[in-house]
């Protein structure tokens, strides 16, 4: 039971409570045992309690308290956005957001699509059942 995601300068984390819920931030400095200084491209650098952060696998190569420009450059070099959007965690969140924003008409179209797909699956299954001999 070893820890794999450490709190370190450059660790990318997800804010899981509060006004900035759902935002990806980089730990830029550690204030004390409980709090970190945290920064992101479209946000004012601020302190936040570790309890409000969920650490991700992604790290950025920065020194302690970099300038905003340096931080943004380092984030682009580490390709944080793409890594996040391709990770299973990131993809899950994107799907959740999409589902929550669905229109009534969208929900209807999805229902039709699900029925169509289930129909195709059942047809294939029936075909395979016919061919199979146990």
């Amino acid at each position, binding site marked *: 039971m070893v820890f794999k995601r450490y709190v370190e300068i450059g660790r990318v984390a997800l804010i899981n409570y509060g006004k900035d819920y759902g935002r990806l931030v980089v730990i830029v400095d550690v204030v004390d045992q409980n709090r970190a200084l945290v920064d992101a491209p479209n946000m004012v650098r601020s302190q936040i309690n570790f309890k409000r952060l969920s650490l991700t696998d992604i790290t950025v190569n920065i020194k302690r308290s970099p300038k905003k420009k340096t931080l943004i450059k380092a984030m682009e070099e580490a390709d944080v956005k793409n890594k996040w959007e391709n990770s299973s965690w990131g993809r899950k969140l994107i799907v959740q957001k999409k589902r*929550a924003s669905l229109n*009534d008409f969208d929900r*209807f179209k999805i229902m039709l699509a699900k029925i169509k797909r289930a129909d195709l699956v059942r047809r294939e299954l029936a075909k395979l059942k016919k061919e199979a001999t146990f």
Partner: protein
Amino acid sequence: MICRASITPGTVLIILAGRFKGKRVVFLKQLPSGLLLVTGPFKINGVPPRRVNQAYVIATSTKVNISGVNAEKFDDKDFSKKADKKKNIKEEAEFFEAESKVKTKLPNEKKDDQKAVDAALIKAIEVFPDLKSYLGARFSLQDGMKLHELVF
């Protein structure tokens, strides 16, 4: 009179109460009385040009192009109930008689008005795939759907 900002001509509304509850209908215009003039279209879901109170309606964000539809003719007066033959409650014979009500047939001009409005509407609806079957289906809450979290 006030109309909710989300309800503009061409919006698809979900009727929440009455005979057509759950039906998705197209909003035409707001009548002087404040009620909303709404139509199925009739061929798609059986809702005729009808008045509906906006309190009993959910406005979705789906909009149909209603520019080709002329709803000018409709007014509150068209929807007033015809004066029924006065039924005398004292006449018990009539009361217990098998209800042989003469069904008042819908005057033809009403049917023509409805057809005129719906013809242009249906053309605008067929532009979008699936919109026709969407309007033909009723809305209902399913397992796991949280109304206060749904986006319409």
